[in-house]
């Protein structure tokens, strides 16, 4: 059944997690993610799940990883300073291949910044915060409906790829209240991790791969699970063999980067062959779309690209959609973290213009519109 509700972004994330099958939440209170923690303290026990408030964010993600290795879909929610503490265990989750979801409700930083205010400045931190080479998935919602839909998608992708998936929300979306269509579990396509079915003797936790993703048992199952953050062989025992290390680290990237067509594709609005294209994500994409629609109603010919998967960066799609444009405006509430990625995909820097705001306030449609008009004049 689909029901309509008036929810905040934070509430939508919590309800989506329950409907996606999450039955474990561990967290630590932090503005502006606190409502997710509070709501989960009610929703988890009432759905036969577990809520636990841990001593810090390091322990929160640790408990989530433990619960997931026990076979339960698990998640946490935090903001910049807490996310910084989680980086250590995000690396572990990537290395040992644990499905888990981390909701990062971005706030103004660096450091404590302004706890209650908005920014989009964690784009690089979520991708590169943890040392070592690995890939991971980051999704960016731009509406409360998206908070719901992409949270469900985050759980599906984490189970499918056995990887941490980060939902990159922000303080503005977190407290924005909008109508949401809630599709209940029966209506949702839910992906469950594959489990081993062969003989128990001689089972290798990392030995049987399906699309480069290991078919792993859970702790307590008949198939013995061995997990270590050290470089490990198919058996799950550690190894310092250079060939084992190289194959493992390359597979960790390959298992996601080679399957990007399974990740949420960018939305394209307006004219495909426009000379001017706006690229944005998250709540800034809402302001951008409003500006693009207004401009096009006034006779301008503008296209708009909304990124939904931020990492791995959809370079191929972005390059393809932007190739004909003479000018590309990149709208984001940071110093240009996504703009850097467009340069990395091979788009000439002189074609790019950043619309950046760093005063802890959201980017408004009129700000994007005036930039559009400047470029068109």
């Amino acid at each position, binding site marked *: 059944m689909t029901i309509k509700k008036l929810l905040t972004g934070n509430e939508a994330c919590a309800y989506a997690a329950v409907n996606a099958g999450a*039955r*474990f939440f*561990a967290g630590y209170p932090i503005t502006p993610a606190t409502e997710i923690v509070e709501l989960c303290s009610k929703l988890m*026990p*009432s759905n036969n799940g*577990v809520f*636990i408030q*841990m*001593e*810090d964010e*390091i*322990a929160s993600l*640790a*408990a*989530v*990883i*433990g*619960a*997931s*290795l*026990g*076979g*339960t879909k*698990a998640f946490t929610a935090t903001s910049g300073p807490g996310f910084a503490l989680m980086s*250590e*265990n995000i*690396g*572990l989750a990537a290395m*040992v291949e644990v499905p888990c979801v981390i909701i990062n409700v971005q706030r103004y930083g660096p450091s404590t910044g302004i706890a209650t205010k908005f920014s989009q400045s964690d784009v690089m931190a979520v991708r590169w915060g943890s040392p070592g080479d690995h890939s991971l998935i980051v999704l960016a919602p731009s509406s409360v409906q998206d908070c719901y839909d992409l949270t469900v998608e985050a759980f599906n992708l984490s189970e499918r790829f056995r990887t941490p998936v980060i939902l990159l929300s922000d303080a503005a979306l977190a407290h924005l209240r909008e109508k949401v269509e809630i599709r209940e579990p029966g209506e949702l396509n839910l992906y469950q991790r594959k489990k081993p079915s062969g003989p*128990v003797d001689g089972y290798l936790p990392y030995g049987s791969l399906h699309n480069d993703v290991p078919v792993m048992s*859970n*702790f*307590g*199952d*008949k198939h*013995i*699970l*061995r*997990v*270590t*953050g*050290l470089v490990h062989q198919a058996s*799950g*025992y*550690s190894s310092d063999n250079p060939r084992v290390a190289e194959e493992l680290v390359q597979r960790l990237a390959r298992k996601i980067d080679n399957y990007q067509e399974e990740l949420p594709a960018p939305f394209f609005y307006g004219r495909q062959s426009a000379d001017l294209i706006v690229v944005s994500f998250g709540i800034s994409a809402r302001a951008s779309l409003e500006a693009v629609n207004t401009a096009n109603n006034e006779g301008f010919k503008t296209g708009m690209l909304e990124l939904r998967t931020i990492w791995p960066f959809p370079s191929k799609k972005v390059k393809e959609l932007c190739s004909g444009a003479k000018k590309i405006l990149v709208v984001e509430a940071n110093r240009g973290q996504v703009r850097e990625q467009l340069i990395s995909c091979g788009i000439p820097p002189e074609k790019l213009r950043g619309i950046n705001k760093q005063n802890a306030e959201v980017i408004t449609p009129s700000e994007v519109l005036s930039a559009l008009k400047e470029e068109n004049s």
Partner: protein
Amino acid sequence: MPLADYKQYVAMDRLPSIWCPGCGNGVALKALALALAESEIPPDKTLLANGIGCSGRVGDYVRCHRFHGTHGRTLAFVTGIKLVRPEIKAVCLLGDGDCSAIGMSHFIHSARRNVDIVTIVINNFNYGMTGGQFSPLSPYNMITSTSRSGKAEPDIDMCKLADVAGANYVSRTTIYHVAEMKNYIKESLGKKGFSLVEIVSPCPTYYARYNKIGTIIQQLEWLKEKFIPIERYNEMNNDEKENFFWRGILINRDLPDLYQHMHKGVEVRKR
């Protein structure tokens, strides 16, 4: 179950271990395997979780479920595992540096929550894997590679800490006292809630060498002489206590564990 069945928990084909000759880690592993065999806990319902460091490598030599995560965080991971899989018997085998420095907060909170975990702390008084630096448990004034003229900081008693934090079972022994070690581990495997078995262990490569404790035989004799039964220790005056450490069972009680508390909480909310 016959005694030899301890081998069902040990990956004999992966031996010899990486540990130095004279290290206590292998002795502790055998005591744990014996205790598991005598308690008849099947390997697929046993989880051995480790910290980082020398003792952290113990998971490479077991046949049961094995978890090896990030430095100091083992108890937090296992808290998550135990809340969703309460039927698993979870043993966390941690080093003194892992548990009392970087992992101190998780240690206190796990004991406070009384999570159903058997925690074995192998205390060799230093960080062996990184070359013998002092840990919070290295005794005052002892020589390590970061305290060449004697450790300037006081140490801390993890057993007393576990007691005030709320653990159900707290004991301390040494690698010399092999039978006692196995018995304490076995006793803690039979408990619900947070158990701590601290095992003082020789580090022949660094700690014993820096502090001129002598050969491995002399190190074991040092453990035998310095660690006296808690009853005898308690009768000593403060000056005498300076030269000794206690061993024995400090706490043995049956307070409700975290899982029981949580489920009681749900019942109350539903009413």
